């Protein structure tokens, strides 16, 4: 008898706990890189080595984090510091001879109205190949102010992300830049959540 009473109390307690949590729970929660915290994209840290923990820490073979070029924010420069290694020697076309990406994941093509006389006068589009990018962050580091406009950021690709309960990157990240947010919030284009 007393055990029945205890059980009823315990079941009620557990159920109310569950109801309390469900009322504040969200439908779908995903990991997101907060660009204003990520070492590679946050302002103020220039000239340091890019942080590549997103590549090395992720439990997925090809990291679930990749660099994304938000085209609407891209300067479409002739010489892009994220595409070229701007410290390398200049070749005969007047462009740096080396690329920055170690996996050659960025493609460069002229867009819009072409100036046949002076290719430096053209706009260029930089497309990052999702299959090649492993999220090492080098281009992100170079794209930010003052060299670039900061159009490239590291983002989680949700088709690869296992949504680990404890994201391995988040544990290693020195700036705690990975956070769990409700899915609709994570899909808002190009918006970084304010740093708290």
């Amino acid at each position, binding site marked *: 008898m007393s055990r029945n009473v*205890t*059980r009823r109390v*315990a*079941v009620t307690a*557990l*159920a109310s*706990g569950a109801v309390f*949590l*469900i009322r*504040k*729970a*969200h439908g*779908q*929660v995903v990991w997101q890189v907060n660009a204003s915290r990520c070492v590679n994209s946050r302002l103020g840290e220039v000239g340091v080595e890019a942080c590549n923990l997103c590549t090395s820490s992720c*439990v*997925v*073979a090809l990291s679930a984090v990749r660099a*994304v070029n*938000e*085209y609407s*924010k*891209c*300067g*479409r*420069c002739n*010489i892009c*510091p994220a595409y070229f290694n*701007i410290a*390398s*020697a*200049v070749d005969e076309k*007047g462009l*740096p001879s080396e690329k920055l990406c170690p996996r050659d994941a960025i493609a460069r093509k002229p*867009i*819009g*109205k072409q100036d046949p006389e002076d290719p430096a006068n053209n*706009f260029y589009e930089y*497309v990052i190949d999702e299959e090649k990018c492993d999220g090492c962050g080098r281009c992100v580091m170079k794209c930010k102010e*003052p*060299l*670039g*406009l900061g159009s490239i950021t590291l983002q989680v690709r*949700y*088709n690869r*992300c*296992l*949504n*680990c*309960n*404890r994201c391995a990157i988040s*544990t290693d990240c020195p700036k*705690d830049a990975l*956070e*769990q*947010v*409700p*899915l609709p919030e994570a*899909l808002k*284009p*190009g918006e970084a959540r304010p740093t708290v």
Partner: protein
Amino acid sequence: MLARSPIAVLVLLLLLPWQALAQAIEYSRPVETAPQADTIGGGYKTPEVQRPLPRDYWLQVFDVVLLAAAMGVSAWLVLKRRSRRWLMGLAIFSLAYFGFYREGCVCPVGSIQNVTVALTDPRYSIPIVVVATFFLPLFVAMFFGRAFCGGVCALGAMQEMVVLKPVKVPRRIDRALGLLKYVYLLLAILFALKPAIARDFVICRFDPFVGFFRGTGAPHMLMIGAVFLVGGMFIGRPYCRYLCPYGALLNWCTRLARRGVSITPHRELDCGLCNDACPYGAIEKMRAVRKDCLYCARCYASCPNEGERARARESLVTVGGGAK
């Protein structure tokens, strides 16, 4: 000699800035704002940025439904059918689905930490699926015992497969080691309670088998997993009995259960064979200790009376089938 070196220095001085120019460009950003489609001209349209979506939501809900269904089947197979063979089938399915296919995440064991954080940190978002994953097995345990441990938990199933030659751990050592899981539970809660920057989900970090499920993992964790599997050949389900923090919670809930694995002189024989068959030390004085019972149904499989009943059932089936 002396005359030559200043010249050399002069030549070098002349060369250096020129060389630097030849080596790399003087970079300056040509634009201050991003040019938009109308500036770029030539019919250019800004392309869409690819944003891959996560796994469909209904599939996540399906996982929870499957979890509930599997626990129901586990309870039915053990308490009603008393069939170890079918239970092993369920365990293999769970290991394949929750373990290798879903890659071990999210599981009730790890969800302890999410629930802890959600209860204390108002900024933390917890998915409904995780809340359900945490509470369902506890509710089931309050009525039917640890049905989750038997055929559903992937970590348990993994260890269940390797039990080869289990030794009886002396009762006192067994009890003492069993206390470890409460310590582990406390540690996991403490680490989850830390502020976001220092928070750590230790249960997931030191999950011994998730590395196998994913095919990758830190070498030391794969090693620990292998040690658990090899050790598990001789000591039945060491992680479940001595470390699993969720086991601690299930243990408490099971104390309230009205039903569960029971060995009675009425239905069984009191011959003690089940006592020898139980690799988990969950049979004391020929009675099942429900809070420690991991729902493996070995006791029923070893019971001569049960075997008799099963044979009777089967012969009925064959007779019925043969008559047709």
